[in-house]
């Protein structure tokens, strides 16, 4: 009985290993392919951005909406300006900066139902 | 007084399953309509920027108002100590919960962003009567659940009186809140009145009892339980009083408005020149919802007439809410007194509205949800007394 169970577990693990073969491998774990269009310094170190960007966005959006604080560092427009794909002009879509990771992680975002995913030229000078 | 015996319904007949199937199909239709509206946006409905609350809200508010009113029967038993109503208390509590579930389901599914219900339940602006209502509705579930428990659990029976009192007060506050949703709207002539809160309370008594009577009659007839005249006559008289009271409130509302020169245009709209709204007011609310039921209830003693009266009350209630909610929005807002107003946003004119299929499907789906939940609950737990024959219920003392 135990041997059958062990056999099943081994088979499942083997299959799981094969299933990830399609994605980029970092060791044995598949990772999403994120295209960071503009290199150089971001708002914070990459690791911190990956872990905390959601908290930053949630906190900052209330400060912007309710108090009118528009620090350029934390502007969503700023993120989009930098990270929009050079081909599609958007942070969504197949290789979009936001959607590539979010689709991989199956965490749906509804920011871009309202916010524009495209960078736009602004006619007036920005502070 | 003899102990009351309750039992579940058998719920194995083909007719019962057919009932569940039909109601289930209506519920699915409602869910499909909700998905269609949410996915495409509300432009697929008859609602617009002038009429933002349409058919779904008529049904939702009817169900919510009836939910609080249907608890009346249990309250009369527990709070006012009328033993005759005691066997009916469990069914009354059940209907309160299921009707509210149906109404809230319609309301939530019609929201522009129904997936944000969690936001609504975690962010409160306590100046808004709407926010208070969210508390009141969810609290109502909890309180009625506890109340039902005190009725079911023999060891808790002594607590059914205080539980019933809490439920009674809570639902008066809840219905006041529902009426105040409209009463607090300062800028609309058809609303903006302190009268709306008590009017909603009396409407809840009437609509709730009508639904209760129909469900009771159907449940007893279809499960072969005796339903004697003693119980029915009490309920008949009660419904008659409530229907008369609703007519009284409507009369006071309009008579007061007619006295005020500033309100003459509104009254002319509703009572005379409002097209569909005038027709629904006089034929629906007053005639079918008021005069005909009174004639049926006090004119004859037949059960069929009683059931017909209850159906008329429900139809009249829906008409009354249609006139209030949709007619109230159709009437233009008076920003510029003594001026004719026109604009691209339909200022100054009576707004057009035609109910669309998705809206009606959602509203009906909510009603079906309430009924199917009731039907299933009756099979799962003993809500119905085994017999309500004249010899089995409490004596004339109640």
């Amino acid at each position: 009985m135990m041997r059958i169970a062990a056999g099943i577990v081994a088979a499942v693990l083997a299959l799981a290993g094969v299933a990830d073969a399609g994605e980029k491998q970092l060791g044995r774990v598949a990772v999403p392919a994120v295209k960071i269009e503009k290199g150089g310094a971001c708002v914070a170190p990459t690791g911190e951005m990956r872990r905390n960007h959601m908290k930053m966005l949630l906190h900052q959006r209330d400060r912007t909406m309710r108090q009118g604080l528009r620090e350029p560092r934390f502007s969503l427009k700023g993120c989009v300006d930098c990270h929009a794909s050079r081909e599609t002009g958007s942070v969504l879509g197949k290789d979009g900066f936001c959607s590539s990771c979010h689709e991989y992680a199956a965490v749906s975002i509804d920011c871009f139902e309202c916010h524009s995913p495209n960078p736009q030229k602004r006619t007036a000078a920005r502070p | 007084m003899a102990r009351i015996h309750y039992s579940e319904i058998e719920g194995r007949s083909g007719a019962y399953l057919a009932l569940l199937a039909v109601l289930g199909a209506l519920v699915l239709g409602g869910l499909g309509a909700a998905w269609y509206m949410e996915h495409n946006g509300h432009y697929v409905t008859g609602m617009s920027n002038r009429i933002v609350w349409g058919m779904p809200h008529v049904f939702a508010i009817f169900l919510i108002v009836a939910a609080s009113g249907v608890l009346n029967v249990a309250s009369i038993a527990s709070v006012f100590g009328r033993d005759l109503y005691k066997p009916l208390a469990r069914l009354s509590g059940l209907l309160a919960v299921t009707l509210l579930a149906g109404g809230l389901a319609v309301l939530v599914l019609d929201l522009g962003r129904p997936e944000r219900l969690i936001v609504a339940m975690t962010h409160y602006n306590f100046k808004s009567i709407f926010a208070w209502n969210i508390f009141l509705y969810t609290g109502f579930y909890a309180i009625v659940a506890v109340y039902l428990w005190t009725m079911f659990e023999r060891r808790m029976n002594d607590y059914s009186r205080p539980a019933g009192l809490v439920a009674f007060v809570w639902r008066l506050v809840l219905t006041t809140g529902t009426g105040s949703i409209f009463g607090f709207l300062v800028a609309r002539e058809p609303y903006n009145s302190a009268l709306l809160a008590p009017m909603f309370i009396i409407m809840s008594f009437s609509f709730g009892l009508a639904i209760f009577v129909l469900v009771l009659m159907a449940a007893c007839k279809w499960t072969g339980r005796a339903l004697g005249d003693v119980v029915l006559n009490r309920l008949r008289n009660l419904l008659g009083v409530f229907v008369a009271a609703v007519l009284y409130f409507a009369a006071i509302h309009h008579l007061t408005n007619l006295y005020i020169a500033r309100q003459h245009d509104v009254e002319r709209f509703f009572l005379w020149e409002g097209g569909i709204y005038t027709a629904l007011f006089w034929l629906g609310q007053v005639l079918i919802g008021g005069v005909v039921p009174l004639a049926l209830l006090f004119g004859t003693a037949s059960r069929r007439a009683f059931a017909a009266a209850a159906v008329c009350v429900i139809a009249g209630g829906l008409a009354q809410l249609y006139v209030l909610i949709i007619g109230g929005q159709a009437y233009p807002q008076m920003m510029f007194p003594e001026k004719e107003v026109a604009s691209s946003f339909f200022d100054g004119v009576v707004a057009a509205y035609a109910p669309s299929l998705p809206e009606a499907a959602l509203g009906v789906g909510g009603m079906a949800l309430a009924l199917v939940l009731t039907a299933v609950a009756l099979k799962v737990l003993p809500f119905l007394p085994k017999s309500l024959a004249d010899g089995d219920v409490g004596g004339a003392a109640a």
Partner: protein
Amino acid sequence: MNPDRRQFLGWGAAAVAGAAAVTTLAPGFRLIELAQARSPQEAASKLQRWGLLIDITKCSDCDACVTACHEENGVNSHGRSETDAQWIRKVSLRDKRTGYAQTLPLMCQHCEHPPCVDVCPTGASFKREDGIVLVDKHTCIGCRYCVMACPYGARSFVHETVSGQKADVPRGKGTVEACTLCVHRVDRGETPACVEACNKDGGKAMAFGDLNDRDSAIHKRLRTEPSSQIRADLALNTGVRYQGL
């Protein structure tokens, strides 16, 4: 009693420190009047109250304000006039007795006591410290109670999926929206698009400014010329005032 020199110097230092602390209590909180547009790192402040003054005697059939607003904010028409959003509209009036005709632009009046803010169950409809009434789309559940409550019919419900939004103006299906007094422009020190268009292409009927600033043009005009609010009887103290009504 004679405080010695050390004590006196101590009090003086404390007084200066206190004054410095009080004038810079927290980022954005100043007791000194704001003389110009705030920087992006400063919060909106109660010291300012933005408003409009519209002289409708200068209004004609022109609708430059409407076109400019909808262009600036990405409010597109779908050919469905009953459900399309309108952030500003021209309203035509005709006196019932005398037949005298006028037109005026009507938008969110940015009341000091907004009924829409009172009735919003989630607090999504709110008034910023500087008087601009906004909808926080992150919290809006689309219940439309504010649309019912607004005395001016200023709010629109978004009845369809929105695409091609302007970067400065997020808009989405299922939420409610209204004139934002071009808050994205105001925060940059500019005027709302309607005012700019009126002064450029229209009848020069609209003026924008800080109602709390005694030296502003709008304040001077309100002090010296007659003006009125729509539905002044509701005591909402609107930020939009009209002349010639």
